[in-house]
């Protein structure tokens, strides 16, 4: 169940990397901001986190588009945009973390896990609502994202840019218009995943962003860098391996996904769903 939530955690990062070849090291920090956004909205205005999903997606998507036009066009013109983006977004991550610490303090925040009601029983199995709600929201958002990416004209344009920027431009596709859209959606998805982070990963504080970035990287590398379907697979593998380890070897649980990540990088560096292509 939490595998789909982790897929949502990684999807925004993979979308941004796939389209722009930009490594957003601040991805986890946007998740953290999403968590704080939902927490503050609930504390101040009693806005249900499910409603926060819609608000935060729009707000963070717009913020993402602003960040795109501020940084990314210059980055992608450089000789090594991936390395430069690593350094730049590491700096952005540090700034966000510092600002969040100043704004929210260092103590972790969490929600009342019973706020979505009692556990649900399906097929003679009880599912805690604080995990079931993130599962349903993740399922709906992933389905919407896949409809968007694979069935709409902007989605086709984004996939085309993922394939080849030059070829996409030769098809009349405005690279910056659709890249900014993808960047905004990527940041919006991060914030939305962040809304449920306090329920799934526990208390969130300003330093949690770094951990969430690492988890996101594990997920997208397990699936395949730049492959949205691979992200779902990576999320499921990550979620299942975490649950298994927490059940049978709880003291090793936190390192298991990273061991899995190292093994996959050694055995199949393109990710489990990555595949080779024939170049002319």
């Amino acid at each position, binding site marked *: 169940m939490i595998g789909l939530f982790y897929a949502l955690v990684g999807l925004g990062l993979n979308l941004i990397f796939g389209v722009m070849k930009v490594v957003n090291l601040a991805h986890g920090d946007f998740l953290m901001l999403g968590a704080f956004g939902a927490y503050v909205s609930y504390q101040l205005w009693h806005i249900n986190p499910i409603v926060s999903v819609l608000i935060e997606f729009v707000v963070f998507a717009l913020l993402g588009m602003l960040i795109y036009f501020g940084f990314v066009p210059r980055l992608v013109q450089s000789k090594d945009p991936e390395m430069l983006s690593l350094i730049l977004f590491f700096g952005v991550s540090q700034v966000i973390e510092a600002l969040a610490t100043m704004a929210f303090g260092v103590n972790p925040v969490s929600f009342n896990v019973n706020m979505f009601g009692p556990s649900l029983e399906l097929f003679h199995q009880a599912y805690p609502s604080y995990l079931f709600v993130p599962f349903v929201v993740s399922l709906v958002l992933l389905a919407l994202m896949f409809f968007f990416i694979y069935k709409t*004209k902007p989605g*086709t*344009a984004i*996939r*085309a840019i*993922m*394939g*080849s920027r*030059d*070829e*996409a*431009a*030769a*098809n*009349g*596709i*405005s*690279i910056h218009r659709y890249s900014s859209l993808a960047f905004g959606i990527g940041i919006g998805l991060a914030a939305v995943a962040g809304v449920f982070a306090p329920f799934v990963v526990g208390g969130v504080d300003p330093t949690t962003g770094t951990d969430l970035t690492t988890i996101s990287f594990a997920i997208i590398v397990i699936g395949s860098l730049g*492959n949205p379907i691979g992200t779902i697979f990576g999320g499921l593998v990550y979620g299942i391996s975490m649950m298994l380890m927490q059940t049978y070897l709880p003291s090793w649980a936190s390192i298991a996904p990273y061991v899995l990540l190292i093994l996959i990088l050694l055995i199949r560096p393109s990710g489990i769903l990555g*595949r*080779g*292509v*024939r*170049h*002319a």
Partner: protein
Amino acid sequence: MGAFLKVDQISKRFGGFYAVNGLSFELKQGEILGLVGPNGSGKTTCINVLSGIYAADGGTVEFDGKMIHTMPSYKISNIGINRTYQIPKCFHSLTVKENIDVALAHAKHKPQVDPVEFLELQGIMGRNAGTLNTAQQKTLDLARALATGPKLLLVDELAAGLNPEETESMTTKLLHLSEQGVSIIVVEHLLSFVHALTKRVIVMNAGKQIFEGDLESASKDPLVNQVYLGGDAV
């Protein structure tokens, strides 16, 4: 008939090196122009400037009455100039059909021909572009360009890697497009392919035009002989 494309003194510099240096030429609607020259003479850079991949450092380009030398490549595609690449840049993870559909979805002009039927791609529509061989990828690249309904088509080393039958078939197809009113600039090393397509070629060397005329006259030109064969002019 007046000039459809007017290239006036365009230059492209990389650091201190001029890849294209003051190149000028004109092209009529439906005309085919061969752009030939040794490696590094600036042919592909010229195509890259015309298609908006590179911004020109100097000079102007006027196409169908519009100045286009400052336009980004997607706008140039939208006004009716499209190109193929020396090394095809198909969307490898998409099928042949999806590759063509992307172009059709964003095209601003109706294609002059059905690219699938015209280039006989029916048998490979479901295959991923990344699994195609070189000739198939080049054909797909051309199909993608034709799907945007170009009024000016820039083809870069299209015949390289094609067998004689494929080259002959491609010649027939390009001539048909020209009859449909599509202007074509052909960058090519395979001179027999250029010869079959057009009587008008520009020979480039070190970013400059050194000859304009037909291929037969070019082969007798002392300067052309010098840059192709080396040594003293004959």
